[in-house]
Each structure stands twice: as structure tokens, then as C-alpha cells.
């Protein structure tokens, strides 16, 4: 089997872009004070890959997610943060994958919001396991925050797709559906 060099290098590039977004995002202070709440801009890359057609498969997305989360943990040196970002990211990825499969016409922002809520739900579950079930009082704030950040990242990806259809078909291969 031939190794697809273009695909391999693009996958590595995606992982690095996700990592850079993650590092930049960590510098942005949030006006809301709730444990686990963040913009989730790194999800832009996962979303972007989810809606790339052609050669992009679930395992490629999962690989980018794993590389991003592990490298981020190495850079920050925070093993506990790894537990949070891994669980949250995994929840988000699974929900977004099933949303995309179950609702063929679901728009990118809709899938993004579902992913963001799943991410925050996953994180607060880890927080509850580490501290106590009392942290669940933050759930409504995290759901509302997830909707806002999900819409932000979702529309960011949607507009990238809309604005650069040629670029998308170049890196995505065939069968790109922009929704």
C-alpha cells in the first residue's frame, strides 16, 4: 500500500495548527468564571476535518485529536489538564461524529454546538469525580457557554468553507458538502 504523502503531511499540519490555536487560546482571558469553560477554538480543526470530503476518515481526525492533546500536555506539563482535555475532547468528537452520521443535513454550527456541550459535560464529569458532585451547579453555565463557543467555532469553519471552495476541494479531495 502506498503512503499518501499529501494526506500524511496535511494531517501533521492540522495537528500543529490545532496545537498553535490551543496555545494562543490559553492566553485569552475569559470574562466568565466557571471551571472548565473555554473558547474551544482548537475544535475548529476537528470540525474542519469532519466536513472534509474524500480521503478524510474518522481515524485521521482521531489521530489529530490525540497528537494535539498529548503535545499540549507536554508543553503545559500539566497531567491533570490532560485528563480534562482528553475526556472533553473525546466526548465532543464522539458526539460530533454521530451527529454528522445521524443527521446528514446538519449544519456545521449545529454539529459544533453539540460538540461544545458534550465537551463541557465531559469536563464537568471529570471535575465531579475529582472533587464532588457539587460542581454540577456549574452545568447550566457550561451549557450556555458551550452554545456560545460552539456557534463561534462552527460559524468560523462554515465561513472558511464558504469563502474558499477551491482550497477546500484541493485539501479535501472529492465529495465536499458545505452545509
Amino acid at each position, binding site marked *: 500500500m502506498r503512503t499518501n504523502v499529501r494526506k500524511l503531511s496535511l494531517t501533521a499540519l492540522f495537528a500543529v495548527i490545532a496545537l498553535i490555536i490551543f496555545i494562543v487560546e490559553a492566553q485569552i482571558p475569559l470574562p466568565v*468564571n*466557571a*471551571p*472548565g469553560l473555554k473558547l474551544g477554538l482548537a475544535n475548529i480543526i476537528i470540525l474542519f476535518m469532519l466536513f472534509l470530503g474524500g480521503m478524510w476518515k474518522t481515524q485521521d481526525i482521531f489521530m489529530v485529536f490525540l497528537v494535539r492533546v498529548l503535545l499540549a500536555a507536554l508543553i503545559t506539563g*500539566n497531567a*491533570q489538564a490532560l485528563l480534562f482535555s482528553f475526556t472533553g475532547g473525546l466526548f465532543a468528537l464522539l458526539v460530533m461524529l454521530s451527529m454528522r452520521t445521524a*443527521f446528514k*443535513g*446538519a*449544519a456545521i*454550527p*449545529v454539529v459544533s*454546538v453539540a460538540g461544545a*456541550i458534550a465537551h463541557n459535560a465531559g469536563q464537568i464529569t471529570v*471535575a465531579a469525580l*475529582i*472533587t*464532588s458532585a*457539587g*460542581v454540577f*451547579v*456549574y*452545568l*447550566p*453555565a457550561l*451549557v*450556555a457557554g458551550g*452554545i456560545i463557543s460552539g*456557534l463561534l467555532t462552527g460559524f468560523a469553519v*462554515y465561513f472558511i468553507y464558504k469563502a474558499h471552495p477551491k482550497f477546500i476541494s484541493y485539501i479535501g479531495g472529492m465529495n465536499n*458538502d*458545505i*452545509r
Partner: protein
Amino acid sequence: MKLLSKQNIVFFCIIGVIFVVSVIVWLVVSDIQTENTTALVYKNGVLIETISLSAVETEYEYAINDDGVNVILVKSGEIGVISADCPTQICVNTGFIGSGVIPIICIPNRLEIRIVGGSHELDAVAG
């Protein structure tokens, strides 16, 4: 345009409803008041301190030093974390709590300060 298909409009409406409901629930929850409050300080999930906030007359501070540093300031009717060595500083930014159900949480140091109402004590006094 696919973004505004019937299915997606339904999805956006559902998202809108969930948003409004969670904001309302959050506003209601953060507005709950308790009286004659007691602060429970949990470290690693274990209750290490019970402070009756209404009984505090002079404010004092103390530090929890094992497995991360959190400096707690106890005032009459209020408790808060004034400094911590965690990267997020969420516990410090939460400020002082004295009534209500929103706890102070420091996840990196596994510290939690919860407020419980002392209605039983009140009943005892009244009775």
C-alpha cells in the same frame, strides 16, 4: 442554502431554547440565598473544616499547604480564597461566598468550599 434548511432551523430553535433555559436556571441557582451559614472545606474530597460563618467576629486567614497552596480568608458571614498556586485562579476569581449554592472550587488542588444553610440551628434557637 443548506445552512437554513428546515432541519437546521429546527436545530437552531432547539439550541436557542436550551440556551434560554440554561441561562434562566443559572440565574435562579446563583440567586439562591441561605441564612446562618456554615462553610464546609473539602480537600481531596474529604471534609477538613467546618466553619460557622455567622459566628466569626474577627477575620482571619489560614493556608492549606499540602498538595498545592490555597490561602483562605474567613470574614464574618463570608469566606473566600485570596491566593492560590493553581494556574487557573478560578477559586480566587470566584471571590467571597457567604450565601447561595455556588461553591468555590480549585480543581488543580482538589479544594472545594461549600456553603450550607444552618436552618437546623435556627430552629433550635427559635424552639
